[in-house]
């Protein structure tokens, strides 16, 4: 209850403070690490996992082929999906009733039906429309819709519907004053979007897009139903011969995890880029900030 004793002042300098040893935390860490290592050991020595077989097939040409199909499909479908999603988001938000209802209809349909069903429909398009004609040009549907194009179209359109909503949410998150300022300075709508609105929207668009990309990598495994040889299909085709089901599924699992990890690293880098100007002096200082990145520093 007594006040400060001035003679202690020299000792009160917080620079001299001792930090108590965080025993409970260290114990928890040690325990978790032990459990994890134990589990890894059990998995590693269990012969049923067939690790030698995993190693044997990890770089198998069939698997590599499947991996490239999975990656290629993901990249192409994602690029088309994002581009179309951006157009849909802008259309959805436009004053023009026609544009906004058409975009709404698209999003409603492609989000509301299972991707598997969509893929099968695209693949079987020729039974619905034997010929496709635009103006005087006309094609045999079977020449246009190969398994590859059906897979790309199916994945991309589905992705576009989801991306449209993600992008729209991002655009809406930007302060309305920003668009107005760009307008007041004589920028065209397109320029304002590109230079002012989208860069600010990216902060809320990137994290869910990373999610989408990861889902997409796994969603590509659905294309095996339309005879596309993706990563999963390729390991299946091997274990159908050798019956080494678990080791080959592990090959696929490890590849999926590897790609996902690389994507996570890329995503963090992109997120850091788009949160520049978010207070800290430089973007790499962010780690020192104990607040979650969503925390806003209010300053009038």
């Amino acid at each position, binding site marked *: 209850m007594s006040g400060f004793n001035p003679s202690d002042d020299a000792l009160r300098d917080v620079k001299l403070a001792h930090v108590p040893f965080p025993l409970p935390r260290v114990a928890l860490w040690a325990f978790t690490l032990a459990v994890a290592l134990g589990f890894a050991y059990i998995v590693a020595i269990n012969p049923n996992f067939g690790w030698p077989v995993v190693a044997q097939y990890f770089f198998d040409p069939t698997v590599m082929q499947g991996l490239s199909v999975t990656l290629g499909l993901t990249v192409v479908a994602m690029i088309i999906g994002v581009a179309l999603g951006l157009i849909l988001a802008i259309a959805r938000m436009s004053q023009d009733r026609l544009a906004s209802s058409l975009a709404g209809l698209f999003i409603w349909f492609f989000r509301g039906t299972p991707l598997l069903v969509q893929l099968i429909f695209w693949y079987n398009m020729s039974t619905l429309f034997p010929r496709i004609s635009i103006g005087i040009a006309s094609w045999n549907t079977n020449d246009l819709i190969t398994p590859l194009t059906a897979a790309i179209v199916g994945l991309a359109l589905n992705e576009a519907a989801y991306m449209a909503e993600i992008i729209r949410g991002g655009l809406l998150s930007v302060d309305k004053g*920003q668009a107005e300022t760009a307008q*007041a*300075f004589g920028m*065209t709508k397109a320029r304002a979007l590109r230079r002012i609105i989208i*860069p600010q929207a990216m902060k809320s668009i990137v994290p869910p897009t990373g999610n989408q990309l990861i889902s997409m990598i796994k969603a590509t495994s659905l294309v095996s139903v339309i005879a596309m040889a993706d990563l999963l299909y390729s390991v299946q085709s091997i274990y159908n011969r050798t019956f080494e089901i678990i080791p080959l599924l592990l090959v696929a699992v490890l590849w999926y995890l590897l790609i996902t990890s690389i994507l996570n690293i890329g995503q963090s880098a992109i997120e850091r880029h788009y949160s520049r100007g978010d207070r800290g002096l430089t973007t790499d200082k962010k780690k020192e900030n104990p607040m979650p990145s969503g925390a806003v*520093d209010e300053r009038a």
Partner: protein
Amino acid sequence: MSAPETVLVRARGVHKAFGPLEVLKGIDLDVAAGEVVVILGPSGSGKSTFLRCINHLETIDQGFVEVDGEQIGFRLKNGRLNKLTNREIAAQRSRIGMVFQQFNLYPHMTALENVIEAPIGVHKQSRDEATRYARELLTRVGLSEKFDAYPRQLSGGQQQRVAIARALAIRPRLMLFDEPTSALDPELVGEVLATMRDLAKEGLTMIVVTHEIGFAKEAADRVVFMDGGVVVEQGPPGEVLANPKHARTRSFLSRFI
């Protein structure tokens, strides 16, 4: 009132309604080149709305606005009045600078990038030229140390001065200020007003909506008092502020002594 002056802004019978709410009920206003006009009036009297009509951020319902001999938003051709395209309207706005109450700096760009954005993107200046001029302007508003700071790293007063530099960078024929100091802490108001007084002395044409009576007294050539969507009275600050003719002006001003 001296030699024949060029009229830069002409507003005639400007009406604007938001749904059933009639905000502007016929505003007439002339602003001469080089003139500094301060608009005063109670909250909700339509000051911001009128300012936004001048650069067509709001479309007016009746009347017209002319800036530098060009009708804003429309073109009279062979006796027919045609609406301009978005691109043409953007071009008209490109020489009207605007400073907002909430600054509205682009948060993802540094101070310098904020200032060079429109000169490069809209006015197609070279990056070097735009950067050189931006440095000069930022130095003029006292921010030579802050070229590479992001808006969130600046105080409110500094942000508003960047916003002023950004508006000056487009070499405006007309500057619109909408309550530029209302969002600032009292001790930061002075630095922004000082910057604006300098601009007024340099002969920039300015329309300023503000509650800073002191600024109106010192810097304004004319004070316009608005209430209920009309101009109630206007004249030199010495007259309107010292001897207001209308009761509404008097009661408004009495709150500031």
